């Protein structure tokens, strides 16, 4: 008989590691581990790590899109968790001082990414930055869109040719 309890996220080694920090609600820890796994396994980020922040009573995640990219900081919150602007300001303030806490973190991007987790494990990422950050240039957005389209077309072609090779054999 399958042991469902052993499959639960709370049995994940990372969860057990961060629960040893002794702060943060169970919901927040679950969301953090969920985001951690998403970044590691789905998005395939580099150098993903979880860091505790006692001052804000939260854990945040650091990682890089590629090995050469700047480090980004992410905070996981639950969909129904109450947040105030004061909370976001506090988190922003502390992330600005992060170099002192973690000197090995290296070159970081400005601001913080909020990862909102739903009950069905959907995660939506929003970048939060202090100050006025203008939106991306529409030409750049268009270029990225075309690049993504070409990438998926190429992936589809590779998949098709792989399927055909399997069929022949």
């Amino acid at each position, binding site marked *: 008989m399958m042991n469902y309890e052993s499959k639960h996220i709370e049995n994940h080694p990372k969860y057990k590691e961060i629960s040893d920090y002794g702060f943060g609600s169970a919901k927040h820890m679950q969301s953090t581990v969920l985001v951690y796994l998403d970044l590691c396994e789905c998005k395939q980020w580099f150098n993903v790590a979880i860091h505790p922040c006692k001052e804000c009573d939260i854990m945040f995640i650091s990682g890089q899109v590629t090995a050469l990219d700047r480090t980004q900081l992410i905070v996981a919150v639950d969909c129904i968790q109450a947040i105030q*602007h004061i909370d976001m300001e506090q988190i922003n303030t502390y992330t600005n001082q992060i170099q002192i806490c973690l000197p090995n973190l290296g070159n970081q991007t400005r*601001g913080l990414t909020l990862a*909102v987790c739903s009950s069905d494990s959907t995660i*939506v990422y929003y*970048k*939060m*930055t202090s*100050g*006025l950050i203008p*939106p991306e240039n529409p030409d750049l957005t268009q270029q990225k869109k075309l690049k993504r389209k070409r990438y998926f077309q190429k992936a589809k072609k590779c998949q098709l040719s792989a399927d055909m090779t399997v069929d022949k054999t």
Partner: protein
Amino acid sequence: MGEGRIRVSVVKDCAYVWNAEDVCMLREKHRIVGRLVGCHARFARQNIQLSLPLQLLPEETSLLLLKGMVDLVDGTISYRTPTEQQKQALERMREKTFQDQEHLARQQKRDDIVKNLDKIKAGKKAKRNKDLEERRSAGEDIDQSQFDEDLDLDIDSFQIEPLRKENMMIQIFTEDPWQEMDQSLDWTFPVTEEENLRFRVFRDLWEKGYYLTSGGKFGGTFLVYPGDPLRYHSFYIAVCLPYKHKMCGQDIITMGRLGSDVKKTVLLCSVNDNNELTYTSLVWTAIS
């Protein structure tokens, strides 16, 4: 009332600017956009292109008052029954206008005559020659030189018909010309904490050089433009909220989604515990 200040009519806490030149100056010189809410005189019965008056946001009005650029007057005075004095002043003004128009009409007709004098001479000569021809045919002895003689016409001899009163043009005013300039009004915005926050945010962003309009269409407080809204799309949807106002993650997604769908940044604006304005930009990120 101050020299060079723009007159703003207030009716039931709504501020209006009726003068077209003032509306242009507000936009070009002071970066105040407002919204045209009146019926277009030439294109009535449609809502696509509206006209004067320009309605100002309460924040815009308060800012202009603070900067000493406007004077407020009671707009309800324009709706009252005119006094005998005003009626007589109108009659005098109409009479003067008629005399000016009459003089201009006469001048116009005289200029037309001068312009077409050659044609008129040719026409009169042809008519004269026709009469002479008829007389010659009747047996009268007419010398050929009479046919060739040119007419000497004096412009002042022409009878110019005067302009009639029923043909005179009457101006319908958009701005009330009879408004008493010594009427002043108290303006009470902002009063509540929420109004104060909105006004502080509006003023701060305006002083940074942005153009601001109402953000109701996009679910925010203001739309913030880097330049004139006729030439640029807005960059930000400013949402004013108290510093300790509780939101849930879902609310963040709602606001963020609103902004990302229209390629704008959502700007959360609050006043912190140190009485400083704080801005947090919220942008959807495609983490990949």
